[in-house]
């Protein structure tokens, strides 16, 4: 045994072993061996729930994929418009892959696909797939549940809005953060210091910014009535334009158009931390009596809230960013948590139509709660009693 090992070592170290592979007329010989086994069961199907233009191809891996010296190094996907026609290479897939998406197809045209397994010893093609064509889907059925839930909630909101229009009194729970808005503006008036309203760092395409701007309308109206000084430093140009319109209209509605000027709403910077630095400076220099942080915030939330806290401002924050809510709860006097931010404009205006929408929202919450409870019940029964309701449990 030891002798044979010694011979192998000597042979391996000999000059012969280090030589180039044998050649014929100067051309290196290819490694010899059988080609890999072909992929099987190639299936081509229209990509579901889209506007067409995509066909998905699946296959079963070559028997040599991941095995021995004839290991597959990749797959090549071939396409043709005719079953026995010329197949063109359209893309590759890594070893082990069983899926390829062809996004270069025309709707309602039949295509055939083959998959070729490639190894160092050659390649072998699968049989062609059956004909497949892509088609326009007029409804995305993967979103059916979402559609039904949204429709129910929207109908509930419409129903309660119409009820409210009819004069029905709707009970809305007290939201402490919104009750404090009047006090905050009043405090600023008494102290003769400014109110700062910060509508987040995102643009007008964010629903949270829109919710923040609607609250600004109410705060601006109160500021106009109390003759308090309001400033709105923003981080987006479109938000600046919108906030100006909102503040201007609020002052007009309060009968104080003379007290409004464009410089109340001004742009600082789009940059997140540049904006935070500028606001920190403003807070420290101006020492505002009240700071409203209403909108979409990220890491700057705590920097702003703590700085405003350090100068003794009363702070009312509101955001729907779950990761920033703990910071606001820790550092601010009042925090509108998630849905309360969106409810604020309705709550503050006391407009029955808007309050009706909140009631519809509550019904939606009830439905979600019911779905969660039923889902928990099914899954618990499945695991405890072995009651076989897998499909229902999956739905929930």
């Amino acid at each position: 045994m030891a002798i044979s090992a010694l011979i192998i070592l000597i042979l391996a170290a000999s000059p012969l072993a280090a030589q180039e592979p044998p050649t014929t007329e100067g051309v290196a010989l290819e490694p010899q061996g059988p080609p890999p086994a072909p992929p099987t069961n190639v299936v081509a199907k229209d990509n579901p729930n889209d506007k067409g233009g995509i066909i998905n191809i699946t296959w079963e891996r070559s028997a040599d994929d991941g095995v021995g010296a004839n290991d597959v190094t990749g797959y090549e996907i071939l396409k043709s418009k005719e079953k026995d026609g010329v197949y063109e290479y359209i893309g590759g897939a890594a070893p082990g892959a069983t899926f390829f998406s062809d996004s270069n197809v025309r709707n309602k045209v039949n295509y055939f696909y083959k998959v070729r397994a490639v190894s160092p010893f050659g390649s072998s093609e699968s049989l062609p797939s059956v004909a497949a064509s892509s088609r326009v889907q007029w409804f995305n059925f993967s979103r059916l549940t979402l559609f039904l839930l949204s429709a129910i909630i929207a109908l509930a909101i419409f129903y309660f809005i119409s009820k409210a229009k009819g004069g029905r009194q709707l009970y809305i729970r007290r939201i402490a953060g919104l009750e404090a808005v009047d006090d905050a503006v009043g405090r600023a008036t008494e102290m003769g210091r400014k109110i700062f309203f910060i509508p987040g760092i995102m643009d007008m395409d964010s629903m949270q910014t829109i919710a923040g701007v609607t609250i600004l309308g109410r705060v601006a109206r109160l500021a106009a009535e109390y003759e308090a000084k309001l400033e709105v430093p923003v981080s987006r140009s479109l938000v600046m334009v919108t906030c100006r319109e909102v503040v201007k209209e609020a002052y007009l509605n309060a009968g104080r158009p003379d007290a409004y000027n464009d410089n109340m709403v001004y742009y600082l910077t789009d940059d997140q931390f540049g904006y935070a630095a500028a606001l920190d400076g403003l807070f420290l220099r101006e020492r505002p009596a009240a700071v409203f942080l209403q909108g979409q915030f990220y890491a700057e939330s705590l920097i702003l809230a703590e700085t405003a806290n350090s100068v003794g401002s009363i702070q009312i924050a509101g955001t729907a960013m779950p990761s920033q809510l703990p910071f606001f709860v820790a550092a601010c006097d009042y925090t509108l948590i998630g849905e309360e931010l969106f409810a604020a404009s309705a709550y503050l205006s006391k407009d029955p139509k808007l309050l009706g929408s909140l009631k519809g929202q509550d019904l939606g919450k009830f439905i979600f709660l019911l779905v969660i409870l039923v889902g928990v019940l099914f899954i618990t029964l499945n695991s405890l009693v072995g009651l076989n309701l897998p499909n229902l449990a999956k739905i929930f």
Partner: protein
Amino acid sequence: MRREVPLVLTAIVGLTMIISHFIPPLNMLKDLFEDWFFIIAAFAIYLGILNLIRINADKVYKKRSDWPFGVVVILGFLLITIPGLFFSGGRSFSDLGTPFYYLYDHVYYPLSATMFALLAFFVASASYRAFRARNVEATMLLVAAFILMLGRVPIGDMITAWLPEGYRMGNAADWIMDFPQTAGQRAIMIGIALGVVSSALRVILGLERAMGGE
């Protein structure tokens, strides 16, 4: 008309965005509207820049309070804009080695990182206030935070090594994150989703007064 036209446009765009989520062929309209938004926002940035320069120039000119900060803003703006526009030597302003990139790498980036780093100190001061055991809720928060912070460092498991596996500090921290925290966060997320639906409907229906509604 000044009120009606924006409301009609809002309703059309809003409804199209909702419907296109369920009807794939309308995705192209959704993409189109999103592109329009970015184009309008890109134009609007000039409004912001003009406003920034005008307000700060006015402050400096009239020597209002804190006017030196206005000088810093204007100089900072020129310092980053002029090299980016005129001194890139024919290369893209963001290429390595350009004056703009130098300023980005050696001025802007460290300043941003400094602001971000301040967060560590603010977290400490906010936590100190939040974790004072003033009432039952604050005490629960304090206990949960104590377990979580200890459970995330090796010493947490070390000091509870005498407990059976599965009951140590690290496991308790994982349990808090996996169950009470996840449940609470999901409840907030459901509320937010419903709030967004309700708020969006109010804007689309023209009920939000601040957004041009009745």
